């Protein structure tokens, strides 16, 4: 029931502006893929093309075993959850949810049964007669989800479904969405600009930028081994140093000599990515990098320090909130474990 979705050389232009630039993607059945990227990267346009709401300028979309590039949206058998929920204002919850089933001409008793089932699934049992305007944002969202799922579509598409909810509700809802997707084993594509969300619930993260896919991989892979500097910077915070490999386990970036895990390829251009959580502050002299503490931002469980290195570049370090606190202006050493820090080579290093 759950389908594979394939995008071949998919391209979309709007009035000469390229929104999606020949992307290739295969979405494995039963998995949740997150299309992640900043505004304007083409993720929503891609989703809408998969749904059939936009026609590609070039390329093909395969859903299951069929080329659906030119199939109208009402014949694609997909479920779509919109950012603003798009519930039908003149219908009650049950009628909203039943809409897709009525379009498929299912018998009434079957419809009633399935509606009750899916409302129970999203924990809105008993809400059949309510009107959309009587519901909170989270409840409307769940109705939208129920409406999309009740027809047992081949795949579920979600367009930033959680961005209109407040933080706590968002965390709660994203777990619920993930649970339901897992339980039903339905292929799902989620568009989001929130990398925390993508990392938290997606089986695969697809990082997009300016209409292109920068990297596809598990959340951990994308975070730990970013393929481009854009990915390194967009997914989580990154300290990036660009320079040339010395061949003896260092990266020479300007006046800095940074330990890296790559011991070969002398002279090659490379970039080092150090995550703030992988770095630590030590008393001055304890490590290769020395700098002056500029300040920190208190974030509850940790403090995010900015240290100004000898050559002027900033270094962000996350320090757990325990023990002594280095004062602003004091000189410290910054250390990190090179084995945990990714090195980008060659062209990727110039991102």
């Amino acid at each position, binding site marked *: 029931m759950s389908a594979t979705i394939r995008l071949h050389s998919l391209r979309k232009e709007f009035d000469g502006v390229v929104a999606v630039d020949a992307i290739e993607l295969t979405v494995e059945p039963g998995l949740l893929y997150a299309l992640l990227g900043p505004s304007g990267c083409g993720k929503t346009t891609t989703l809408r093309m998969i749904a059939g709401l936009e026609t590609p300028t070039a390329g093909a979309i395969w859903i299951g075993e069929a080329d659906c590039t030119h199939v*109208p949206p*009402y014949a694609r*058998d997909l479920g779509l959850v919109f950012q603003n929920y798009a519930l039908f204002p003149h219908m009650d919850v049950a009628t909203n949810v039943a809409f897709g089933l009525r379009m*498929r*001409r299912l018998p009434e008793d079957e419809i009633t049964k399935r509606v009750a089932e899916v409302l129970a699934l999203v924990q809105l049992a008993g809400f059949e007669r309510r009107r959309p305007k009587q519901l909170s944002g989270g409840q409307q969202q769940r109705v939208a989800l129920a409406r999309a799922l009740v027809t047992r579509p081949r795949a579920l598409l979600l367009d930033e479904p959680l961005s209109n909810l407040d933080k706590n509700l968002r965390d709660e809802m994203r777990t619920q969405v993930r649970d339901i997707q897992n339980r039903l084993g339905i292929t799902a594509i989620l568009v989001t600009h929130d990398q925390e969300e993508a990392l938290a619930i997606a089986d695969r993260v697809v990082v997009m930028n300016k209409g292109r896919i920068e990297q596809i991989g598990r959340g951990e892979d994308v975070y730990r081994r970013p393929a481009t500097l854009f990915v390194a910077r967009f997914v989580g915070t990154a300290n990036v140093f660009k320079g040339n490999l010395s061949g003896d386990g260092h990266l020479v970036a300007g006046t800095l000599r940074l330990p890296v895990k790559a011991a070969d390829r002398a002279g090659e251009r490379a970039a080092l990515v150090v995550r703030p959580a992988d770095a630590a502050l030590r008393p001055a002299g304890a490590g290769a990098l020395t700098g002056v503490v500029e300040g920190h931002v208190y974030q509850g469980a940790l403090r995010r320090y900015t240290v100004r290195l000898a050559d002027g570049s900033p270094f962000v370090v996350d320090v757990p909130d325990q023990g002594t606190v280095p004062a602003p202006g004091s000189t410290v050493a910054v250390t990190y474990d090179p084995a945990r820090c990714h090195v980008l080579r060659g062209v990727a290093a110039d991102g």
Partner: protein
Amino acid sequence: MAERALASAVQGDEPTRRVVAWFAPRRWLVPVLLVLPIAAVLMLAYVIPVAIMAGLGFFATDPTGKVLPTLTLAHFVKFFGDSWYFFVLVRSLRIAFFVTVLTVVLGYVVAYFLAFYRSRLIELYLVLVVAPILIGNVVRAYGWRFLMGESGIVNGLLTRLGVIDRPIPFLYTEHGIVIADSSVLLPIVIMILLGVLSRIDATYIEAAKSLGAGRWRAFWHVTLPLSLPGVAAACVVCFTLALGTFETAVFIGGKRVQMIAPLVYEQIGVVFNWPFGAAMSLVILAISIGGIALNDRLMRERAR
């Protein structure tokens, strides 16, 4: 198997599908067909007739009024050259001007009230504003006629109260027309200005107040300037409507205070001198379009 049944239900069986499928390769046809009915009506019953009317004004007539196939400017010459016709035009413009000033000022007051004074009765007020439009200009002009007569209600009341010794003439006077016409056009102007004022972001006014402006100064320095484009638009609409004032002109002005629209009616519907009537209409139309274009130009200048 369930998939196949689903596919056919979603895809093939609906009668609407066949229609939609037919249109699929010809998507551009859809908006064309949707627009067709209105386009037909507007073209055939509006644009073309107005164009023909505009053109008719250039055709000569023989002394019996029959239309001759020769082009001439005689009707326009007659209209502007004859002191009577020209006088009527100037008077109509003058009255339209005063009506506009009076109506927009009064309308602004009411619109301001409706936009900024929260009230539970707002719906009732709006109905009170709109209802007179729906009741029709004939009825309202008729009502004013009764109000304004020598033994009409207003004069009767004022005499009873001892405010005046002799009845003030309203009927068959220009100021009478201005007053009555203003009352007739007020609802439309109020609705336009209400739309304008309610769109002004209240936070601008709050900002002004937080910076120390009192109610009057906040109004003068913030609300009024922001509403000016809308006020200008309301003036143009009001002027155009007032220029074409008909019912009020006939009932209040009568033959003694002739205005341009009843004059056109007379030429077209009574004297049957169509080319002349058409020429007059064209002049009125040109003035209105000129007013709209001027307003447009001024708005664009301000926007820069």
